[in-house]
C-alpha cells in the first residue's frame, strides 16, 4: 500500500489521492455515500481490505447506500490528540451504523449543535473542508 501524505498542522484533512479510498472521496464530492461490497457474497467490507473475510473472494465494488443511519455511540472531545490541532475543544463525534449496511461504522462529526444520543437518526451529508475535499457529517434528528 502506498504511503499517504499527511498535513503537519490541523485541522486534519485526508489525502484524497490515496488509491484505497479514492472512490469514497470521489463519491463524497458528488454527495453520494458508498462502501465496498463483496461481489461474490454481498458482504460490506469497511474498512477496505484485499479479501472478504466471509467468503474469501477478493473482488469488491463500491455500492451506493442510502445515507440514513443511527447513532451507535458517541463522545464529545474536550482535548484533541490530533497533531497540530488546538488541544481545547468541544467537538461531538458520532459513530454511525446503518440498518441496511451491516458491518459498517462511519465516524463523523455533527452538523449544528444538537447533542448526540445513542439511537438518534443520523443523515449523512457532505461538507467541503478544502479544495475538492468533502467530508461526511451527520445531521441528527429524533425519529
Amino acid at each position: 500500500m502506498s504511503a499517504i501524505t499527511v498535513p503537519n498542522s490541523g485541522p486534519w484533512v485526508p489525502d484524497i489521492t490515496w488509491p484505497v479510498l479514492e472512490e469514497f472521496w470521489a463519491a463524497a464530492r458528488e454527495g453520494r455515500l458508498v462502501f465496498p461490497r463483496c461481489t461474490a457474497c454481498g458482504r460490506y467490507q469497511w474498512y477496505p481490505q484485499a479479501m472478504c473475510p466471509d467468503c474469501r473472494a477478493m473482488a469488491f465494488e463500491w455500492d451506493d447506500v442510502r445515507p440514513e443511519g443511527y447513532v451507535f455511540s458517541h463522545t464529545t472531545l474536550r482535548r484533541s490528540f490530533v497533531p497540530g490541532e488546538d488541544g481545547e475543544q468541544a467537538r461531538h463525534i458520532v459513530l454511525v451504523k446503518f440498518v441496511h449496511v451491516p458491518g459498517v461504522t462511519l465516524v463523523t462529526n455533527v452538523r449544528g449543535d444538537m447533542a448526540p444520543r445513542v439511537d438518534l437518526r443520523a443523515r449523512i451529508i457532505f461538507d467541503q473542508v478544502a479544495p475538492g475535499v468533502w467530508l461526511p457529517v451527520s445531521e441528527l434528528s429524533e425519529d
Partner: protein
Amino acid sequence: MTVSPLRDAIAIVGVGESVYSRRSAVPVPTLMVQAVRDAIADAGIDIDEVDGIVSDAAVAPHLLPADELAANLGLSDRVFTAQMSVGGAGSVGAPLLAAQAIATGAAKTVVCYFGVDWGSAPGGPYRFHGTDPYKASLEMPFGFYGQPVYFAAVARRYMHRYGLTPEDLADVAISTRAWAALHPGAMKRTPITRADHRSSPMIADPLRVLDCCLLTDGAAAFVMTSTARARDCRHRPVSVAGVSFSGAAMSGHSYLAQHEDYLSTPAQVTGPRALGMAGVGPEDVDFAEIYDCFTISCLLQAEDLGFAPKGAGATLFADGHAAPGGSLPINTHGGLLSHAYVLGINHVVEAVAQLRGGCGDRQVPAAEVGLVSGYAAWEHASLVLTA
C-alpha cells in the same frame, strides 16, 4: 478433558522492574537491560544460563531488539527468540511461547522483557495510530484519534446498554488508587474520592483524566525455566498453570471504530481457556491483575473473565470486593491507572510478588491462584499463576 502438556511445565523464577516515571533520565533501552539483569539476579542464576528471549511484538523490540539485548548480556548461544501480540497482550501471553520452547527442550531458561518510552516520547501512545492511512483518512479528520477517544465511545455504548454511571467508573479508579497507596513503587499514591473524579478534567466524554491510565517511561522483565530447574532458584517458584492467547479478526486499521458491539473483549475466550488449562474456575481465583488501560476496559474484562455477569462488573468495585481487604482483590499494585503504564508486564510482576508472599501492607492473604489479563483491543492473553 485432557491435561495440557504445558500446564505447570514452567515457572517464573525471577522478576525485575525499573523505577517508573513520566520522563526517565536514563534512556529506556538502558532501563530494559537493567530490568533483565535484575530479574536474572532475582532468580539467583547466572546470566549465561539464559538461552531464550521473548517479548511483545510491537513496542519492546522497537526500543531494544532481542539481538541487542543479547549483545548487552553477552549471551553467546541464544537458541530461541519469539514475539507475540501488539503491546498489551504480549508480556502476559509470552509464557505461552516460553512454555512451548522449554517443554520441548528447545530452550532451558527464557527471559521476557518489556520497556516503553510513551511517558516522554513526542506523540506518546497515540503516534503509531497517526501513521495508519485508514485512521488518517477516516478518523483523524473528525478528531477520533487516540485511545482515550476510542474507549470513550466504548464507555458511552456500555452506559447506554447497561445503565453504567460516571460514578461506577470512578469507583474503579478509586479502588485501584487505594491499592497503589500501599505500593511504594506506584507512580500515583494519593487516595482519591468520587469528588476528585468528578473534578478531574474531561478528555472525551464520559472519560476523565482519572479514567485513563498513566503515561510512563519504564521497563520490567521476568525469567522462566522448567518446573524442575525452578526448585533450585532463590525464591519459591510461581507456576504457570494456565495460559491462553486469542486474536480476533480485526486489525490495527479498524481498531476500534469497527468493533461489532463494544461490549466484549477476547478475554471471554482466553479466560475460560487459561482457567480450564489450570483446572480451576473464576471462583478459585484469589486475586486478579487486569489490563486497566481505562476504567471501562477493566470492567469489560472483569466480566469476560467470569468474575461478574455481563453489565454487572461495576458491583465488584462499588461494593469493595476489588479493594484492599475485599473478596476479589483487583490490581493490587495500582494497575495501569495508578502504578505504571508499562502495558501489563507490571501486572505479571505483581502477581508473582503476591504468590511469593511478603507484599507487606498490600499482601493478599493466602494467595494461591492469581489471574493476569493482558489486553490489546482485538488481542487478549490470560495467564493463571499458582504458588
